[in-house]
């Protein structure tokens, strides 16, 4: 890899977020005392590595499911937001996690747990989009537009909002690849596994996606200087 390539190294995947909302969950009036009690019990168990966590879930250990949820919730939800928009993201994330928990008995560890989870999340998001298209419903409002309108943003935050807006306007195939590779920091091998395509296809799609994204940002008046100062 030459200097130019090295300078474009990707960021590592988002770090796990463990046990952040157990207390909040326990306070919610959803489904009554049973869920509160269970949330309190489940908050105690959080195996450190993915394999141990999967084993714990298969054994039915209290708290293991919620631990997995907290470990992957931001990644799954962010993916859902970027593929289907904020309006439908919660529904898609819910569907993704249900598929994940139901499918864990079949998870054989051939791929990394994160890769497998991303695949289910992407599939849930793309299925959701297909159903919406079949039902001829209008697209959900752009999540980031709504966010940008809700509160003023400054400096590089403005730039990021504009990048998010441009991402949301990319064709979904380009958007998915760029989100998985450039935003989530996955390698092409992982992206190819998730999307069920060849590594070469993942690479070519990514470069096309970046080129389209750059065109969109330029059309929005985002200059090279703005990007470099962002």
């Amino acid at each position: 890899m030459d200097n130019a390539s090295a300078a474009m190294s990707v960021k590592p995947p988002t770090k796990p977020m463990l046990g952040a909302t157990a207390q909040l969950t326990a306070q919610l009036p959803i489904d009554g005392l049973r869920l509160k009690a269970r949330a309190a019990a489940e908050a105690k168990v959080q195996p450190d590595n993915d394999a141990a966590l999967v084993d714990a879930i298969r054994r039915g250990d209290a708290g293991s499911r919620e631990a997995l949820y907290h470990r992957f919730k931001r990644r799954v939800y962010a993916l859902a937001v970027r593929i289907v928009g904020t309006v439908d993201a919660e529904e898609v994330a819910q569907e993704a996690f249900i598929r994940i928990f139901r499918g864990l008995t079949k998870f054989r560890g051939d791929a990394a747990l994160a890769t497998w989870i991303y695949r289910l999340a992407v599939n849930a998001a793309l299925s959701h989009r297909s159903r919406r298209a079949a039902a001829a419903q209008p697209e959900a409002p752009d999540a980031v537009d709504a966010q940008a309108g809700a509160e003023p943003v400054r400096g590089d935050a403005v730039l990021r909002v504009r990048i998010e807006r441009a991402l949301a306007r990319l064709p979904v195939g380009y958007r998915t690849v760029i989100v998985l590779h450039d935003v989530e920091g996955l390698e092409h091998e992982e992206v190819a596994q998730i999307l069920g395509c060849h590594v070469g296809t993942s690479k070519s799609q990514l470069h096309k996606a970046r080129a389209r994204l750059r065109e969109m940002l330029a059309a929005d008046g985002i200059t090279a200087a703005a990007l470099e100062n962002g």
Partner: protein
Amino acid sequence: MTACRAYTTERLSAFADGDLSAAEAAAVRAHAATCPDCTAALADLRALVSNTARLDAPEPPPTLWPSIAGALDKHERRGWFSIANWRPFAVGALAGAAVVLAIVALPALRGPRNGVPAGSPIAETAATSPAVADPLLHEAEAEFAEAAAAYERSIEKLRGLLARQEARWSPQERTRMAERLGRLDDAIARSRELARRTPGDSAGNEQLFAAYQQKIAFLAAAVHRGGEAGEWDKAGARTP
């Protein structure tokens, strides 16, 4: 974006990621060294990727986990009542009936063959259940109906055996039998109605299956004791 048309943004992106062949990469590198536009475009791409990598991961709403936990819990409660779990029991009921046929009812089969034709006391099935929109719920209801049908087949077989003996009974005995079967059928009908009003709920179906089991136990005992007129009504036969 570059005014130079030697390389597209797409190719520059591939170069930046090291995805070009060595020969192509060398050519791009040599060109960029003398082309300010392409050098700027590479820096531009680098900045774009860097900014994209720093996009925030939004925090999911606090309602998400409770929704997931609730949906899983609901699914698993239905799953507990799925046919996969009930099949052994339903098969057990049929097997029990078969044992009754093989062991208990042999004397009846060797007895007089002038019985009246058998008729199922249970005509109503889960086909009367209301339309269920939720596919999972629909699936669960179909499984309940399948288990109920298995019970009803057992009942029908036992009822057929018992019918062969009824010809030897007095009118009073037939009336008592009809009353007791009627009470058992009422219990089944009430349970079925409860299950119908609360589709997918465990309580209604538990009660329905318990009512079926009670009728099967009563009929089995009646067949066992019913070789001779009046014997079916002796103590020991579970009555409703």
